[in-house]
C-alpha cells in the first residue's frame, strides 16, 4: 500500500512582468503571463515505511516538489495522494514568534503540525530534552543562536510522530553533535517503518537515510531507484558537468556511459581532477564490503587529471561519517610517490595496502582523493560504499596484532 502516490504531476508558475499584469489578467481575462514549467511529468509511488531522498542541482524543482507534497502549493495538473498525517520541516522554525519563549513556541508549533490537544504537554519535556536548550527554553526565541533555533524546530517536528515526515535541508545546520542526533532520530523513524521524504545536498545523508532516491533535473525525473545508485550517477554527473561545462555542452549520454559509479560516490569539490573509481579489495584482489579485523585491505582508485600543472598528494582515509576520519593516509611524506606537476589527461591507478586492519567494530567508508601540495585541501574526493567489519569476540573499538606467551614458573 503506497503511502505517497504521485501521478503525472505538473507545476507551472505564472510569471508576470509587472505586478499589475496579474490584475489586468483577472479583469480583462486576457493572458499576460509567461508560463514557467517548474515540474513536468513527475510520477512515483512510495511504499509505506520507505524513505525517499530528492536530489538535484539548485533550481531543479526539489523544494517545489516538497511543497506540493506537503500541500502548500497546488499542482497545475496531476494527482498527489497521501495517506496519513504529514509533518513538514520545509523551513525550520517557520511560525516561531521571536518575542515568545521557546516553551510557548512549542505549543503553537506543535498545534500547527497537527498534534492532538492532549499530547503537547506530554511531549513538552521530551522536546526540551532533545533540543538541549535547558535554561534557554524560557527565554524569548529572538535571543537564540541560529543553531538553537534549528534544534528546537527539529525537536518539535520529529517529536510529534507523524506518519510522514517531510524535511528540506534540515540537516545542513546545527553542530556535528546535533546533526548526529538528528540522523539517529531519523534512523529511529525508519526503524519504526515511518515514511520520510528528504531533500538534501548532502549525498552522505541521502545514502544513509533513504531507500529510494529521485534525481530531478530541470523539473523532470532523471532517475529514480535505489538511493546508492542514483546518488552515484548524480555525483558523477555533477563532477563531469562542472569540469566540462566551460569547454563544451553537456553530453549526458556519453557521461552516462562513463558512469560506473554504482560502486561509489563523491563529494563535488574543485574541478581539477576526477576520481573515476574507488574500490576496496582484499589482498587477493576481490572487491569487498565486509572486512575481517586484522586482515589486509587494499584501497584502489583511478585518478584522472583534468588540468595542466596540478601538483598534489594522493590520499585515503577511513571515515566514520562524511566529516569524521578515523585513520588517514597521505603521500606528503612519501618521497617515492610522484607529486606532479601533472598534465591534463594523466591517469593514475593508486593503491594502498593496509596491513592488519585495526578497527574491531563499526562501519566505515573509504575516502580516496587528490589533495594539494600541503595535503590540507582536497582537489577531489570520492567515497566508497559502506565497509562493515565482521564481528569478533572481544570488547573495545580497536584490535591489535598480538601474540601470547604463557609460561608456568
Amino acid at each position, binding site marked *: 500500500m503506497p503511502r505517497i502516490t504521485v501521478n503525472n504531476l505538473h507545476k507551472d508558475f505564472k510569471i508576470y512582468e509587472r505586478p499589475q499584469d496579474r490584475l489586468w489578467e483577472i479583469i480583462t481575462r486576457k493572458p499576460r503571463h509567461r508560463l514557467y514549467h517548474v515540474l513536468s511529468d513527475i510520477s512515483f509511488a512510495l511504499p509505506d515505511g520507505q524513505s525517499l531522498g530528492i536530489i538535484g542541482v539548485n533550481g531543479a524543482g526539489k523544494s517545489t516538489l516538497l511543497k506540493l507534497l506537503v500541500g502548500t502549493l497546488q499542482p497545475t495538473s496531476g494527482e498527489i495522494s497521501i495517506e496519513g498525517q504529514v509533518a513538514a520541516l520545509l523551513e525550520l522554525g517557520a511560525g516561531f*514568534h521571536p518575542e515568545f519563549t521557546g516553551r510557548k513556541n512549542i505549543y503553537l508549533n506543535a498545534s500547527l503540525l497537527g498534534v492532538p490537544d492532549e499530547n503537547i504537554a506530554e511531549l513538552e519535556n521530551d522536546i526540551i530534552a532533545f533540543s538541549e536548550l535547558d535554561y534557554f527554553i524560557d527565554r524569548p526565541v529572538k535571543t537564540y543562536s541560529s543553531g538553537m533555533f534549528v534544534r528546537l524546530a527539529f525537536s518539535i517536528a520529529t517529536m510529534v510522530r507523524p506518519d510522514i515526515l517531510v524535511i528540506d535541508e534540515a540537516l545542513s545546520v546545527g553542530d556535528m553533535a546535533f546533526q548526529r542526533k538528528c540522523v539517529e532520530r531519523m534512523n529511529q523513524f525508519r526503524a519504526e517503518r515511518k515514511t520520510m521524504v528528504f531533500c538534501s545536498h548532502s549525498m552522505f545523508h541521502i545514502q544513509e537515510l533513504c531507500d529510494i532516491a529521485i534525481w530531478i533535473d530541470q523539473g523532470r525525473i532523471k532517475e529514480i531507484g535505489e538511493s546508492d545508485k542514483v546518488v552515484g550517477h548524480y555525483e558523477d554527473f555533477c563532477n563531469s558537468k562542472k569540469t566540462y561545462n566551460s569547454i563544451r555542452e553537456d553530453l549526458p549520454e556519453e557521461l552516462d556511459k562513463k558512469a560506473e559509479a554504482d560502486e561509489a560516490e563523491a563529494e563535488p569539490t574543485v574541478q581539477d581532477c576526477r576520481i573515476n573509481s574507488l574500490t576496496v579489495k582484499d589482498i587477493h584482489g576481490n572487491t569487498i564490503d565486509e572486512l575481517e579485523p586484522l586482515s589486509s585491505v587494499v584501497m584502489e582508485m583511478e585518478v584522472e587529471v583534468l588540468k595542466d600543472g596540478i601538483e598534489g598528494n594522493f590520499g585515503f582515509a577511513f571515515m566514520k561519517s562524511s566529516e569524521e576520519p578515523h585513520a588517514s593516509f597521505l603521500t606528503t611524506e612519501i618521497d617515492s610517490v610522484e607529486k606532479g606537476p601533472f598534465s591534463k589527461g594523466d591517469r593514475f591507478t593508486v593503491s594502498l595496502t593496509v596491513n592488519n586492519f585495526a578497527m574491531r567494530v563499526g562501519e566505515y567508508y573509504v575516502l580516496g582523493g587528490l589533495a594539494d601540495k600541503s595535503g590540507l585541501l582536497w582537489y577531489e574526493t570520492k567515497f566508497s560504499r559502506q565497509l562493515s567489519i565482521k564481528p569478533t569476540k572481544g570488547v573495545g573499538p580497536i584490535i591489535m596484532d598480538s601474540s601470547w606467551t604463557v609460561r608456568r614458573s
Partner: protein
Amino acid sequence: MFLSLIREWALTPVNNYRLFHNFTRQDFFAQFTASVGGFLWLFLTPIVHIIIYSFVFAYIFQVRAPAGFGETSFVLFMMIGYLPWFAFADAVGKSTGLLLEKAPLITKVKFPVQILPVVGSVIPYLTHGIGFGILLLYLATQGYLSVSWLLLPVIFFLQFLFTLGLVAILSALCVFLRDLQQLVTLGVTIWFFLTPIIYPITMIQDEAVRELFLLNPMHSFVNLYREIVLLGEISLIHLYIIVPVSLLSYVIGGWLFMRIRLAFGDVL
C-alpha cells in the same frame, strides 16, 4: 461545493480549536509582550482619541447629544459608538497585513489558512471588547442597566461577523494586490467620518441625505448600541439592516477566501 466551503469556513475555529486557541493567545499577548507598558497601551489610542474628540466636539463645537437621548452627556454618547467602532476599524485596518506577515508560514506549513482572518478579527474584538465592557460596567452603576442590554452581545457578535467577512475578503485580495494596504487605511478614515460617531446624525439637516446613511451598516450598529444602552429600546429598521448584512458579509467573505486560498502559495 459552495455549501461545503461555507461549512468548513464556519467550523474552522471549532475543528481546529487548539490551533485557534494558541494562535489567538499568541497574537493577543504579542501585542504588548515586549513593551513595558503592557496591555495599557492597547487602551491608550482609543482613550486619547476620545479625549481629543471630546475636546474638539463637546468643548469647542459644543455638540450635544440629540434630543431623543435626554440628559446624556455627549462624551458618553460618543464613547458608546466609538469603542465598538474602534474594534471594527482596528480589525479592518490590520486585515491587509494578516496573510502577508504570515507568508513564510503559509508557504511552508500546511494548516487551515482561513484561521488567520478569524484570529485577526477576534483579537481587536477581544481587546476593545474589554474596553467597551468596562464602559458598560460603569454605565450600569449609573442606572442605565435594562433588560434590553441582553441584546448587546448579539449585536456585538453580528458586528463581529460583519467585520470578519470584510477582513477575509481584504486579507485575501491583498495577497494579489498589495496596493490595497494604502487604500484600506484611507477607506477606514473616510468610513469613520461618514459614520455618525463624533456627531449625532440629527445634525444633518437634509432628510434625504440622512436616509442615505442607512446604507452604512456601521451607522446602524452604532445607533443600536446607543439606543440599547441609553434608552433601553431599539429601532427595528437598524436590526433589519444588520442581520442580513452581517450574515451576507460573513458568508460571502468566507466563501471568497476559501475559494482563493489555494492560490496563496503561488503568489506569496
